[in-house]
């Protein structure tokens, strides 16, 4: 019996009162941050911004399908813009996490490749690189 002592139930309880308070607090914080995120998140973005090392690499329209290959000092990423969404198709980073993100299309959504310090983000701003149409 010494190896499996029967302890009083208070020690075996899965949730104690403070645990429930902790869960409640985390849930509340989650809901609040989710609401804040939803507030800032626009319905549909227009521009794909690619940043490396925190600096802007390029801006591309989300409506034009294209493939962007980045050969940065950290490594290589292949970003595909297709059907109004953007995703990382290929990369030589060690963890390949950037390729696991679901395609992004809404404002303020991001894809991050941490080893390459690369961020792909969607903004609502119009494409500044589009040529002016003068009739």
């Amino acid at each position, binding site marked *: 019996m010494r190896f499996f002592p029967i302890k009083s139930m208070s020690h075996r309880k899965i949730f104690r009162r403070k645990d429930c308070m902790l869960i409640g607090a985390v849930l509340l914080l*989650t809901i609040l941050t989710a609401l804040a995120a939803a507030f800032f998140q626009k319905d549909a973005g227009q521009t794909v911004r690619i940043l490396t090392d925190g600096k802007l690499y390029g801006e591309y329209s989300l409506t034009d399908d294209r493939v962007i290959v980045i050969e940065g000092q950290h490594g290589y990423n292949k970003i595909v813009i297709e059907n109004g969404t953007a995703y990382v198709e290929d990369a030589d980073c060690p963890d390949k996490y950037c390729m696991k993100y679901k395609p992004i299309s809404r404002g303020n959504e991001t894809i991050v490749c941490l080893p390459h310090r690369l961020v792909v983000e969607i903004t609502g701003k119009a494409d500044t690189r589009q040529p002016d149409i003068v009739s």
Partner: protein
Amino acid sequence: MTKKVAYCAMLTALAMIFGYVEALIPFGFGIPGIKLGIANIVIVLALYMFPAYQVFMIQLARIVLVSFLFGNMSMMIYSLAGGILSFLVMLLLKKTKEFSVTGVSIAGGVSHNIGQLAVAVLVVQNIRIAFYLPVLMASGLLTGCLIGMLANKIKPVLGSVENEKGKV
């Protein structure tokens, strides 16, 4: 002393194996960073068996070894950020004696995700990544809860080992 080293080594090895097993389980929703955190079960239980510095060493050894064996430098930085923050938060909650193992584990899961996200924001210098905060907090809550309930079942058995052999 010898016994202490043996226990630490055993738990470090166990945590590493759990981390490896976890990598085999496909578990994700298009957002990297969401994981079960099975290795944390070792750390949570160790908190109730050994002095704090010893648990801290197990955590450090686990992260450094796993990063060197299967990962890379950048992975080590994020793991360390999450690992150290979650260790400190779990230690604090355990010291208050107000929370059960489940509560400690939940706090560990949530703070681990927050720590990693904070370092990610600093490294890529982009605050927009913080938009993943609600999802990562919710996942930390859920996985921390699962791991905590599991640890809750294992803890009474381990506690008796300590009683049997004396304080290690």
